[in-house]
């Protein structure tokens, strides 16, 4: 790796951190304008540096003998044994470079957008400081050279997400949502950490290079120990996947993401659409050879959990009325799509289509989903409400938002030539060749996606003509420019030749659109749109009729299949009553009692030995001599 690339990658990490420190320490000493400018300027440099890195990696030094290489540069930080040590460093390979581009682009857009959206908010400087912290953590996560470094940044990402969700800390619902997000993901991370410990215990390394080398000793000769019928490595990768499922909101750990929408909308666009929530997908992709060669059973689990999640979230999304929640469930569904793609993937050449399409979908989804969120932000900014009931007919007032939102909806619905079509098509092809059940499921989800996205679109921009207290208007150039830029990206990113750039083994393969699958998938998308058009373009009572027809199912869906209630029941009724209360009693009476007893005892003792310290030198000398003689006597005899 050329030395200038190392310097650039270090700068990519250092600038957001520096931004965070400067903005965080200065806090209200900077004016809003200064803070915003510093944050945005720093990020634009990071974005440019990321593009330089990506360009150089993909078209200059990355490919050696037709294979994209992994480049690592690291320093040893903590050494446990000769083979096991934690390093800190930078890893450049196709997926990490791709993630650099995604993160810095979306983050830059969010920085610019927030200049308009957060204008005049209390704590504006703090907001930008946290955004920088998040960007730093996320960039650090993707370039981690080893699983432990990734874990460190993983937790940092969790913390900054917590801070940003709870940004409006005077609002109880935001505080609750922040806590929920943090606790649920931390719970999942417990699995991740245990997985890391098991993995490192049996493989004696944290290093991604060694863990994922298909010709290396770990994959060639995996540890054979078993635990409860499964190999220990299966347990390890399953637990690691649990961490990923927590961050990526897979069933049943998805409950935090809809609530996380309490954060400022640009934050949702950055964290809960494009970057942090795909960390789980990235984690599985990072360890993909390990999953594929050593623990294919776990990979199947990944695929089925992904399929179940995507179907579940798509169904729930059809009934939600808060526009950000619709987008949240849509995000869950789309990320699950990526998981499915990883789950059905093979290794090498065209077999690795699933892996490639997963990364491809991650890439395209990041832009169009960020666009959807930012568009939703513009709508919320204009009408001061999240509820679809308060909207309607906005196309006249918000033309830019309308067009860009439509582009993103078409893209997620899988209509060519928008980017979502290409990546989704590849996923469906991969699923079709691997497992017909999964394919059927994802096919259905594609239709549902088109339906609920256009339900949302029509509900906001068409539908009934709502009377507004004051005329809604666009949020100014700071908010429009990112929308337009992301809209353009949505138009072009579908044409990026991912099969040349990002593959399981670094070797390009030929991929083409499989029209036998693409045409039905377009048709199902169009069908979804058509149904939505009939139901929602003009105010009608069809939606109510449908809801009445499926009464029980509708209510269950609207309540997100009672997942939150189940969690509450399990935690409050079962865990609190049956486990926590007895433990609390034990703690209060036995443990505290013991501690109080100790404190009492130490207190007694310390007051009883006070007389030793009399201030008289004669006594000091006496004690001195006596002690020396006693010790000598004890030693000699």
């Amino acid at each position, binding site marked *: 790796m050329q030395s200038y690339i190392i310097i650039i990658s270090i700068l990519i990490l250092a600038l957001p951190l520096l931004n965070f420190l400067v903005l965080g320490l200065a806090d209200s000493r900077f004016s809003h304008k200064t803070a915003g400018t510093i944050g945005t300027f720093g990020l634009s440099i990071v974005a440019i540096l990321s593009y330089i890195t990506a360009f150089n990696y993909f078209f200059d030094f990355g490919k050696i003998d037709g294979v994209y290489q992994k480049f690592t540069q690291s320093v*040893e*930080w*903590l*050494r446990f044994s000769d083979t096991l040590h934690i390093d800190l460093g930078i890893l450049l390979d196709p997926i990490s470079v791709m993630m650099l581009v995604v993160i810095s682009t979306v983050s830059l857009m969010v920085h610019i957008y927030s200049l308009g959206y957060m204008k005049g908010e209390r704590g504006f400087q703090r907001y930008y400081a946290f955004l920088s912290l998040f960007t730093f953590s996320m960039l650090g996560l993707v370039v981690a050279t080893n699983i432990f470094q990734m874990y460190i940044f993983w937790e940092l990402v969790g913390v900054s997400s917590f801070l940003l969700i709870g940004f409006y800390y005077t609002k109880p619902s935001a505080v609750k949502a922040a806590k929920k997000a943090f606790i649920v993901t931390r719970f999942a991370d417990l699995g991740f950490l245990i997985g890391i410990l098991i993995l490192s215990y049996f493989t004696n390394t944290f290093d991604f290079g060694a863990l994922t080398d298909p010709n290396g000793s770990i994959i060639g000769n995996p540890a054979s120990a078993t635990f409860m019928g499964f190999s220990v490595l299966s347990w390890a990768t399953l637990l690691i996947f649990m961490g990923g499922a927590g961050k990526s909101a897979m069933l049943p750990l998805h409950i935090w993401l809809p609530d996380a929408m309490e954060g400022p909308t640009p934050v949702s666009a950055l964290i809960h659409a494009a970057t942090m929530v795909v960390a789980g997908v990235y984690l599985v992709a990072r360890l993909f050879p390990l999953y594929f060669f050593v623990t294919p059973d776990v990979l199947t689990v990944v695929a089925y959990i992904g399929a179940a999640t995507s179907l579940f979230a798509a169904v729930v999304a059809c009934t939600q009325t808060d526009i950000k929640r619709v987008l949240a469930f849509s995000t869950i569904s789309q990320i699950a799509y990526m998981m499915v793609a990883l789950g059905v993937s093979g290794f090498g050449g065209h077999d690795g289509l699933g892996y490639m399409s997963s990364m491809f979908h991650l890439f395209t989804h990041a832009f169009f989903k960020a666009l959807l969120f930012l568009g939703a932000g513009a709508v919320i900014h204009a009408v001061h409400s999240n509820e679809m009931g308060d909207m309607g007919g906005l196309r006249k007032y918000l033309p830019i938002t309308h067009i860009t939102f439509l582009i993103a909806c078409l893209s997620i619905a899988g209509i060519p030539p928008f980017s979502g079509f290409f990546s989704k098509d590849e996923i469906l092809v991969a699923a079709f060749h691997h497992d017909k059940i999964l394919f059927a499921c994802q096919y259905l989800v594609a239709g549902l996606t088109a339906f609920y996205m256009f339900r949302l679109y029509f509900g906001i921009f068409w539908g009934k003509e709502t009377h507004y207290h004051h005329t809604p208007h666009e949020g100014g150039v700071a908010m429009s420019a990112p929308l337009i830029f992301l809209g353009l990206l949505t138009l072009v990113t579908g044409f990026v030749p991912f099969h040349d750039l990002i593959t399981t083994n670094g070797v390009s393969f030929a991929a083409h659109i499989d029209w036998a699958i693409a045409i039905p998938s377009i048709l199902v998308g169009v069908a979804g749109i058509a149904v939505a058009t009939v139901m929602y373009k003009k105010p009608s009572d069809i939606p109510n009729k449908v809801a009445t027809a499926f009464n029980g199912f509708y209510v269950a869906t609207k309540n997100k299949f009672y997942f939150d209630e189940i969690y509450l029941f399990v935690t409050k009724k079962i865990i609190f009553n049956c486990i926590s209360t007895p433990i609390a009693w034990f703690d209060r009476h036995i443990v505290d009692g013991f501690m109080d007893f100790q404190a009492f005892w*130490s*207190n007694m*003792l*310390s*007051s009883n*030995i*006070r007389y*030793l*310290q009399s*201030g008289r*030198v004669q*006594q*000091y*000398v006496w*004690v*001195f*001599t006596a*002690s*020396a003689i006693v*010790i*000598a006597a*004890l*030693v*000699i005899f």
Partner: protein
Amino acid sequence: MNYLDNILAMRAELLVVAQIIFLIIYDLFAPKTAGKTIDFVSCALFLVITAVGFIPQADVEAFGGMYLSSPITEIMKSALNIGVILMFLQSKMWLNSEQIAHKRAEVYILVLSTLLGMYLMISSGHFLIFYIGLEMASLPLAALIAYNKYSYNSVEAGVKYILMAAFSSGLLLFGISLLYGSSGGAGLYFESVRALAIPSSLTLLGLVFFLAGMAFKISLVPFHLWTADVYQGAPTNITAFLSVVSKSAAAFALMLVLFKVFPALFDYWEYVVYALIVASITIGNLFAMRQKNMKRFLAYSSISQAGYLLLGMLAGTAFGMTSAVYYVLVYTVANLGIFAIVSEIENRTGKTEISDYNGLYKTNPYLSVGMMLFLFSLAGIPPFAGFFSKFFVFAAAVEKEYYGLVFIALINTVLSLYYYLLVVKAMFIGNDKITAIARLKTNGYTKTALFIALAGTLLLGLLSCIFAYIEDFSFGLM
């Protein structure tokens, strides 16, 4: 090895001697009105000496093995140097006070003389040199402790110290003479004592008396009784010096002698050190809990800290030595950070009770936060350096399977957290509007000292290369 090489081997000692002579001459001839420049000159010169100390030096044996220098001894001296420079920087306020100002140069000269003695202790290869170093490190200290000569407390502390020091030196010398006797007149070179150190009652008695004498310098229980009185009476900056530099030097010297001279008697001194650790940590903590005076409180806290430091030594391994040296380094920055604040407050307001710190956060937020970080480091709370240093000494002890001892030490860290937090509580929660210390404006010297201490407390733990560097040169029982 010719004469010149012998002398050049004593690089560190020579530089200190040069500075002492320079300061004496400077003080004689410089106009009295320019007295304050001596602070700057002393600090600057000593900074140079500290910097030179970091230049690696090879193993040297000079004057026929009387003087030994190796990379690890140079590292130990550098650790002491850091303590001294921090102490110099924070003494400015005290030196400016009316009674001291006219004799400020002597403070530097006396401190440097004790430092020279400590160097000799660490680098000695012969018990006579060791003893000379020890005395050189003790006598000027007595003068320094009694430096506020119109203060009854200061003089009393000085007298107590010199009496106790004389007594302990006597015992130590007696121990050395027993060793000499048991060696059959082969001399007091470390090598020759080591060769003949067999577990006879004569040698063991000598060893125990030697240990007792050193335990006095490190103020280990039960040889600690002088500590609180002296620490309280001495000028605060001298207390800082006593509790950090003097104590660390003695610990280093003891460690080197035990490792180099008495490895064969490990089975015997192991028990003694074991008992001293348990007693020091526990008794130090129990006393610290009840103190009302800040300086007495720090005295007991330093007794228990010394116990932890010895944990690394007890292991008798290279890792143990590294962890002990590292512990000293971390303890130096944290404790001197605290002393910088305590002495600043004492010299400005004369207040030394813990209750005087009530509400300090309201008036001096920066000092309070700094103090809190130093206290956290002493208590061993991650991610401050103190956590790592405690972790390493525990790891060293666990490696040699002293589970019971580590258990006792761990319980004691919990106890210590209680009294360190008492101070934090006073500063942040204690609310006393009437008597709260007014806002202080610290001078540049103290600020520099605080910054160095803070940087050390925050970074020493995270920069693993420092520990690795020390480990490269450490050795176990020879």
